Every structure is written in C-alpha cells, then in structure tokens.
C-alpha cells in the first residue's frame, strides 16, 4: 500500500498533461509540447514546408512524434515536441509557420505545468488569452 501511494505521488509530480480543442477535435497535450492551429494548411506539401522549418530550429525535441512534429491536415494543426531546457518564445513558433507561408490562429503551450493559450489578433499579433494549470481548454 505504501509503495502504491509512493508510485501515485511519483506519477502526479512527474507528468503534466491536458487536453485542448481545435476545430472540434480534442487533442492530448503533454508537458513540453505545443499545439498550433495553422490556417491555410490544406495539403501535405503545405505541411512538409512547416515540418522542414521546425527541423531547422533549436527548440524542437526530435525524439517526439516524427522528428518532433506531428501533422493533422484535416483538423489543420501541428503538434510540437519542445526541448525540456527551452522556455519557448511563442513568437518563434509563429515565425516558422509564417516563413512557410501560413498563419497561426491558436497556439497552446504546455511548459512548467502551465498551459497557455495564445490567439492572433486582428493586427496579426499573437496575444496570450488564457492561462491554466494543466486543466482543459476549449477552442
């Protein structure tokens, strides 16, 4: 019993996980990950350019997903593995998407057990719009 309690305590301290929603699709997001809704990403060639862009950055954890990036074209999002040591600047993520020719609508980052939701305003500037401690966000 004591061992079980220690194990549960270990799990609760060691993992941070939440769920976010993009275009009515619920996505599981873990510690040191980001989920980006990409406007205009309608084909695999579009997504390829985004993957190439992230591959050249210094904040992607390539041990997650496929070289650090998972793509869902139907729901128009990419999920990124982030290096644990990096406190990501969300503008860096947006820059990669824009260099590929696309726009960010929503961005979720889960780091340091804090889930932050960003949205692009009418001027195209990314703004944090909500914070939470690893509970769920809806779109």
């Amino acid at each position, binding site marked *: 019993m004591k061992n079980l309690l220690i194990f549960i305590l270990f799990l609760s301290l060691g993992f941070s996980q939440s769920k976010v929603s993009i275009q009515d699709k619920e996505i599981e997001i873990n510690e040191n990950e980001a989920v980006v809704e990409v406007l205009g990403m*309608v084909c*695999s*060639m579009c997504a390829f350019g985004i993957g190439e862009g992230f591959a050249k950055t210094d904040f992607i954890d390539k041990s997650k997903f496929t070289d650090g990036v998972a793509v869902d074209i139907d729901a128009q999002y990419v999920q990124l593995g982030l290096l644990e040591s990096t406190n990501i600047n969300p503008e860096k993520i947006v820059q990669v998407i824009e260099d*590929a020719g696309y726009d960010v609508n929503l961005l979720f980052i889960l780091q340091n057990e804090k889930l932050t939701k960003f949205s692009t305003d009418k001027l195209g500037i990314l703004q944090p719009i909500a914070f939470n401690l690893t509970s769920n966000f809806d779109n």
Partner: protein
Amino acid sequence: MLRKFFALIILFSAISAHPVIFKNGKVFWLSQNPSFNDIRFGVSKSSNWLIGGRFLEDRKSNETFALINNNYLAKRWNNRNSQANLYLLSSVGLNTKNSKSMGSIGIHGDWEDRRFMVMQMLEYYSHSSALVSNTRLAYSPYTVDYSKTSTWLIAHYRIEYSDNKYSYMLFPVVRLFKKNYLVEIGSNGGNTFLSFMTHF
C-alpha cells in the same frame, strides 16, 4: 512550328508549378512530353518570392533554352480549411544557340480546400505576342492524412490568342502527391505528358 513549341512550353511549364514555397525551400521539377524536356530548379528566398533556373530542350528541333524564373506571391488568404493565392510571374532567357532573348509576364490566381481546387492563369509572351489562359478545376475524391498519397482529378482548359486567332485545348489530368513528391499524368488522346516535382 516555333510558336507551337513555345505554346507548349507555356502550357506545360505553368500547370504543374507551385509558384512559391516555404522560405529557403528548394524545388526540383522534371517534365517530358512529345515536344520537349524541361528541367527546373528554384529557391524560395522568402515565403513570397522564388527565383530559379530552367533548362529546356526541344526534342524535335534540338533547340535549347536557358531561362530565369521570378515568382512573387502578391497575396495569400489563409483560412480555416482553405487557401487562396494571387501570384505575379515573370521569366526571361535566351536561346542557347543564337542568344535570341525571350520573356513573359503572368498573373496566377487559385483557391483550394481539401476537396476542390480552382486555378486561373493569364500570361503574355513577348516572342510570339501570345496571350494564354489556363484554367483548372480539380476534385479530390477522398482526403488522406499527411503520410498517405493524395489523388486529384483535374480538368484543364487552355485558350491561346495570337495572330488574331484563338486555339482551345481541354484535357484531363491525374495528380498524385505524397508529402513532398508530386506526379501528374495527362492525356487528351493526341497529347500526353508526365511531370515530377519535389520540394526539399
């Protein structure tokens, strides 16, 4: 003969190309049809400007041409589940044997989502004073995720106006692409072509 040759260049050079790709992305493209072999290489210096070189071989006359392409994305509309673009296109080059120059300007608009695509392009060519219109309507019978092969069925309609005469051509094209590879096969009975393109 020369006019037909250039008309074919215009036709087949335009219909497969993605005019601009991701920043620092490179495009390699091959095309072959009964009239010519066409090889292109381009680099997107930014997400809205691609510059590249092109080498053409006329398989009948054995003439060759060296060209520089300059494609500019004037405006892109990125929306949920769709994308629309407006491009400005230009090219300039020489006949490698007699150094005679040629140039073209064009405008290209398109809209696509996961199942449908519409494209319209207008170009003017100085060597033949030809105005060419290319129109495409495309449909993808199914959608696939990033790792699988996508199929598009395309109706391509072309009009050329030169020497106060119009000429028309309609032909079906099948496009297959997966990740960064694209293949197109088209035929209207009398003419067939193949093209291959990759981004990297």
